[in-house]
């Protein structure tokens, strides 16, 4: 991914989070907790489980459609970060070659099942994390974390990081552009120039932090960024949580997918 793409991707995810849908209106705390429960449930499936994971796609699909998040954008992002999981998982089919199933006369080894399981879990967990941001906004998640007991200092500087992410990334973009203008081929992309660039960027960042601090002091900063929105857990948030928990519990503890398959088999026999 090139620099510009990465930059505009963050911006896009940020813009999506300011939409006006029923998913965006839910309390951030409810969404953070629901997402964490979803992740733990998906991860808790045993290594060879493939079939029972299918129903869990309902969660991201509902968030995506009700929250009006473009599907292709999320799918693209999931694929962009997949190499590590694939790289680690792809060894499974070669190392675990015990045949565990025969499907249409082709023996399937345990390794392929566990590899498929890793891929499905990967798609589910990554899309859930991306959708949390896309429907809640980063400051929303930060304030939710704060209310859920994260240290105020940590959350404050997380908010600062976010606020200045775009500023410093634009600065880095200008630096890269300037370097590209002046360098020909691989000239000027070595470690020596790189160290200088990083050093300059660092000095500018420190100067900027100083200016920000004085500007904030004159506006009454006391080491804390309070949340101006006084949101309260509403009935619909509780409803959302209850539905999520019920959904997760049912599909975690009962083999419903297989049961549906069996019924379908009986019907067409």
């Amino acid at each position, binding site marked *: 991914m090139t620099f510009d793409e990465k930059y505009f*991707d963050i911006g896009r995810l940020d813009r999506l989070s300011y939409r006006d849908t029923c998913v965006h209106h839910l309390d951030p705390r409810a969404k953070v907790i629901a997402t*964490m429960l979803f*992740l*733990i449930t998906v*991860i*808790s499936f*045993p290594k*060879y*489980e493939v*079939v029972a994971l*299918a129903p869990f*796609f*309902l969660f991201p*699909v*509902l968030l995506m*459609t*009700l929250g009006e998040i473009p599907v292709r954008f999320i799918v693209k992002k*999931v694929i962009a970060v997949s190499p*590590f999981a694939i790289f*680690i998982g792809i060894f*499974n089919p070669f*190392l675990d*070659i015990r045949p*565990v199933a*025969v499907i249409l006369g082709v023996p*399937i080894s345990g390794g392929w099942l566990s590899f498929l399981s890793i891929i499905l*879990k*990967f798609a589910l*967990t990554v899309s859930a*994390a991306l959708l949390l*941001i896309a429907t809640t906004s980063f400051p929303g998640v930060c304030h939710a974390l704060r209310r859920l007991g994260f240290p*105020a*200092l*940590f959350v404050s*500087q997380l908010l600062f*990081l976010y*606020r*200045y992410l775009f*500023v*410093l*990334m634009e600065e880095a973009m200008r*630096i890269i552009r300037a370097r590209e203008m002046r360098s020909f081929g*691989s000239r000027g992309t070595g*470690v020596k120039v790189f*160290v200088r660039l990083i*050093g300059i960027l660092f*000095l500018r960042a*420190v100067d*900027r*932090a*100083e200016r*920000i601090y004085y500007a904030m002091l004159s506006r009454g900063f*006391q080491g804390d960024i309070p949340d101006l929105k006084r949101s309260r857990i509403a009935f619909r948030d509780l409803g959302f949580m209850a539905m999520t928990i019920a959904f997760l519990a049912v599909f975690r*503890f*009962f*083999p*419903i997918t297989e049961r*549906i*398959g069996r019924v*379908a088999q009986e019907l067409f026999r």
Partner: protein
Amino acid sequence: MHMADALLSPAVGTTLWAGTAAVTGYASKKLKREIDDRMIPLMGVLGAFIFAAQMINFTIPGTGSSGHLGGGMILAILLGPHAAFLVMASVLTVQALFFADGGLLALGCNIWNLGVYPCYLVYSLIYKPWVGESKNPGRILVASIMSVVVALQLGAFSVVMETLLSGKSELPFSTFVLMMQPIHLAIGIVEGFVTAGVINYVRSARPEILESIAVSRPLGAEVSLKKVMMTFAVLAVITGGALSWFASTNPDGLEWSIEKVTGKGELPEQEHGIAAALKGFQEKTAFLPDYGFKPAGSESKKEDASPSWPGIEAGASVSGIIGAAIVLGTIVLIGMGIRVVRRRQG
């Protein structure tokens, strides 16, 4: 080198989340007591700096491939361990949320691997005692390279341990270690050079900036020996548990991996120690595996007793595939239905 959710088991993920949360709470508490407010914007902006700096690539000499900055060590040297740890934790949080690098459950592992090691262990045990207040560029260079290399080796080894303890990957221990450690040795050396270069450059260009940071940074920021020992104790428990697991399953790591590659060993002994504990945990989470959902005539398709063996026989697996196809089809239909209704309304 980000750990991914899909490779984690809940036990490993939550353990490292707990560890990371404890360190974050400790660092916040420490900082709150000892610093002035100007550190908060500085930390935030430097977090954004790490992000921006990671986007600038450079050519690694002799190879033609490109690398970028990790940044944990630079922060630890310039800000001190507590502030640096919090900045690293936030950088990784933003990466997990916006780029889905790793994932939310794996965030605990990633902060541990890339934050705790450089900022607490390596900084206070290697860099700080070695360099101290010295301004000698040569000494800074050597100490930086050492520190970054050690921190990255610890991080890479932890990725291996976390993956193996989760038991989702079939990679044998020795192969995985041989894959991870050398590549991170190379990365560490390059990053060590960059770290030292940046520190020396900043020091020579604007020495007063470093001094002003040092003033606002808590004087007693150095981690006490007791704390370091405690961290080590935690580490020892983790690695000890892991190593004893490997020791109990196989006397020789290499033998084990060869056996696995040739597919001969069935590894029944794997049901020992931590693996068994994890399996037990999974068994407990699945306490209603087939309660009231078995059709009367399907006794033959009953699931295996072993939890790691889901009993995928020919018959059961076909109905499973049909079921999955129906469920996925329904989900797609639901999604498309909502889209269509929305568009009509809009």
